């Protein structure tokens, strides 16, 4: 049995890949797949299908991904990703994903940081559509007994003995009963949103607690300082709501009021890319304008000029959402946006095969650090999650046996809401859009002060939080999503992966990025 934690795209993709080879797997997931964060993805999935007559190709996808990630990603892994992307989208088509089409041809749209129209999509609900199709496909193998789904079960911890993963411990959240599942583990439990509670666009299920547990047990993490702020989010109570990049892709313009007049600042700051600059660049520019005394203290997205058909065909969900939560019709009025945390490029330090440093332990999807370097391009993470799940599953060639053992005196602590809020505030202060040594160090001191009377779960979380801060401190340069105003240059000496390890204390090192094999 291969044990997979999480039923998002990465988890389902791994399970389906295994099932097609006749290999059994368990999916352990705190809620049903329909609740996984993957269903929230809006804008689309990238693949150089070249359907738009722009001579797009795999190499351009590869180049854009590496460049967007400020050259921190593993080039060989990215090459594999870009090469497989068209096949992945075609497979999704075979599973019945109703991609936007003209006749039988998939239509592709523009996304930030890309040379060509390369993003396949379904209105503003791409993630939901992909998930619905994969859920149906996984069901087939579930009924055949190849996939066993443990919904409402939380993977509480991994079992690592002598540097090898021997399984995991899960808790049935309906009965509070604990079990041990034996066998290798593929981690697919999503990003570290729980470290920034209320400030992310994602799901509250992605607590990052399993990642923290793994880190404390010696699983290495990489590029933890690379946190993507999405430039266009709306503050709704308890969370940030994403306004998909499709808004800009379809022609939406950043705007503020300067001296009472409409000012399209991005077009002036970046005359070439204009409103389609990458997310990190856009987030910093928006932050600057928000703090600019000459402007009105707000940044808006202006979509009034778009064709009516665009709203009907491509942005209907978005239009409804903004109307619901902000009471504004985006076709008629500019609406306020601000940057919010959207994606974690950092995570488990894995190689091309998605192996961690621990034998029999793999990681894929947003919990892993792969493909996106210092900054993820929109549309690349759905792809990365599906491809990563596949790659992780490809490590297995034979069916394995593994028992499920009921445990009696296992305990599990809860992270208190107060601790969560404190941790969030401290991490935000050190890991904002614009950082410097002083604020990061202050945040570390505050974390140390918080480190008493904590239960083990909280302490574990605090340690991983500190590793994020330490990673940001040690990377004394600016690159991708990591912007240090005290070291604004990108430096060749940091053209490396930040690797965080724990063994009684946190250790941060910079490791070489693999050389590209083929040319």
């Amino acid at each position, binding site marked *: 049995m291969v044990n997979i934690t999480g039923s998002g795209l990465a988890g389902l993709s791994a399970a389906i890949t295994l099932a097609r080879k006749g290999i059994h797997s368990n999916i352990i997931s705190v809620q049903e797949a*329909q609740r996984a964060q993957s269903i929230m993805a809006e804008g689309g999935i990238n693949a150089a299908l070249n359907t738009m007559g722009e001579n797009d190709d795999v190499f351009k996808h590869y180049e854009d991904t590496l460049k967007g990630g400020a050259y921190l990603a593993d080039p060989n892994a990215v090459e594999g990703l870009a090469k497989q992307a068209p096949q992945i989208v075609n497979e999704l088509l075979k599973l019945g994903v109703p991609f936007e089409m003209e006749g039988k041809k998939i239509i592709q749209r523009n996304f930030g940081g890309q040379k060509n129209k390369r993003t396949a999509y379904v209105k503003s609900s791409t993630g939901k559509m992909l998930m619905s199709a994969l859920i149906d496909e996984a069901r087939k193998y579930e009924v055949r007994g190849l996939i066993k789904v443990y919904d409402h079960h939380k993977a509480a911890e991994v079992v690592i003995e002598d540097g090898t993963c021997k399984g995991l411990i899960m808790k049935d959240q309906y009965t509070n009963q604990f079990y041990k599942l034996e066998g290798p583990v593929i981690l697919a439990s999503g990003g570290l949103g729980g470290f920034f509670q209320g400030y992310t666009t994602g799901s509250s299920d992605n607590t990052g607690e399993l990642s923290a547990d793994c880190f404390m047990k010696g699983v290495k993490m990489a590029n933890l300082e690379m946190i993507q702020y999405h430039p266009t989010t709306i503050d709704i109570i308890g969370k940030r709501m994403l306004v998909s990049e499709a808004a800009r892709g379809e022609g939406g313009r950043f705007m503020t009021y300067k001296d009472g007049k409409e000012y399209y600042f991005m077009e002036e700051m970046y005359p070439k890319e204009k409103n389609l600059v990458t997310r990190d660049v856009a987030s910093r520019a928006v932050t600057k304008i928000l703090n600019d005394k000459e402007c009105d203290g707000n940044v808006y997205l202006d979509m009034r000029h778009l064709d009516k058909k665009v709203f009907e065909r491509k942005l209907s969900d978005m239009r409804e959402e903004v109307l619901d939560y902000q009471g504004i019709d985006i076709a008629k009025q500019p609406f306020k946006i601000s940057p919010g945390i959207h994606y974690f490029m950092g995570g488990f330090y894995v190689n091309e095969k998605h192996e961690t440093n621990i034998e029999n332990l793999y990681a894929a999807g947003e919990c892993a650090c792969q493909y996106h370097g210092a900054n993820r391009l929109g549309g690349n993470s759905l792809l990365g999650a599906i491809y990563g799940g596949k790659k992780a599953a490809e490590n297995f060639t034979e069916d394995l046996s593994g028992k499920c053992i009921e445990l009696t005196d296992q305990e599990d602590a809860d992270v208190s809401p107060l601790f969560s809020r404190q941790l969030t505030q401290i991490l935000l202060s050190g890991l904002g859009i614009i950082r410097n040594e002083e604020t990061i160090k202050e945040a570390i001191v505050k974390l140390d002060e918080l480190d008493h009377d904590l239960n083990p779960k909280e302490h574990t979380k605090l340690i991983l939080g500190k590793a994020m801060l330490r990673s940001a401190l040690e990377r004394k340069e600016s690159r991708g999503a990591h912007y240090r105003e005290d070291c604004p240059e990108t430096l060749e000496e940091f053209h490396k992966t930040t690797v965080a390890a724990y063994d009684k204390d946190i250790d941060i090192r910079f490791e070489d990025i693999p050389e590209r094999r083929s040319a």
Partner: protein
Amino acid sequence: MRIEILRRDRGSDVCYLQVFEYTPEDERETIASMLDHLNGQEELKDIEGNSARKITYKKSCLQKKCGACAMLANGRPALACASKLCDLEEPIRLEPFKKFPVVEDLCVDRSIMKENLRQMKAWFEDEALVSEKRNAVSYESSRCLQCGCCLEVCPNFMIGSSFFGMAGAMPFSRILNEMNKEELKEARKTYNTRVFEGCGKSLSCRDVCPAKIKIGDMLVNSNAIAVWKRYIKD
């Protein structure tokens, strides 16, 4: 604001009503944000000042996209994250769904929906047929949140009954819509016994569906394929 919550302890058969006093931050507050605020307090107290256990409910996206937070709000099935407090009449009464086994407080076990889809064989053996023409129906039916609101109000649905309700019929609409001729034979039968024959067509389900799925249109399409045996020609 007076908030009444029908609670039940884990493993117990006894439910009890507990009342809380709550002042919303502003008019954007939803049931979900209220529950999170209550649960986020150092110590939760009911209206009489007695300390209370945290309120169990399910959530994930907080943006009405995942269906996790479905419950009864003033007797009507709704998503907690999509129900603004200011739109609800006071006192606001929150209850778990009645058609599903209660796990704790507002959290119910909806695994029957998955079980039913497994029974319906809601998947493709062969390649799905996708085209511009078919896409509107596939999109609409794939939006189903599996929240169970439709089942809660449906007069004909019960756990264990042969009729599976719209939580079964909606995902299955995509299957019918994209399935090739060969596979359709069995799927038609399934649709007839699990959906068509049991449905009274009153469409109360449509009125409560939080995703506002065009249930009527989906049924028309599925009926055409499964009952009237029409094929879609691309």
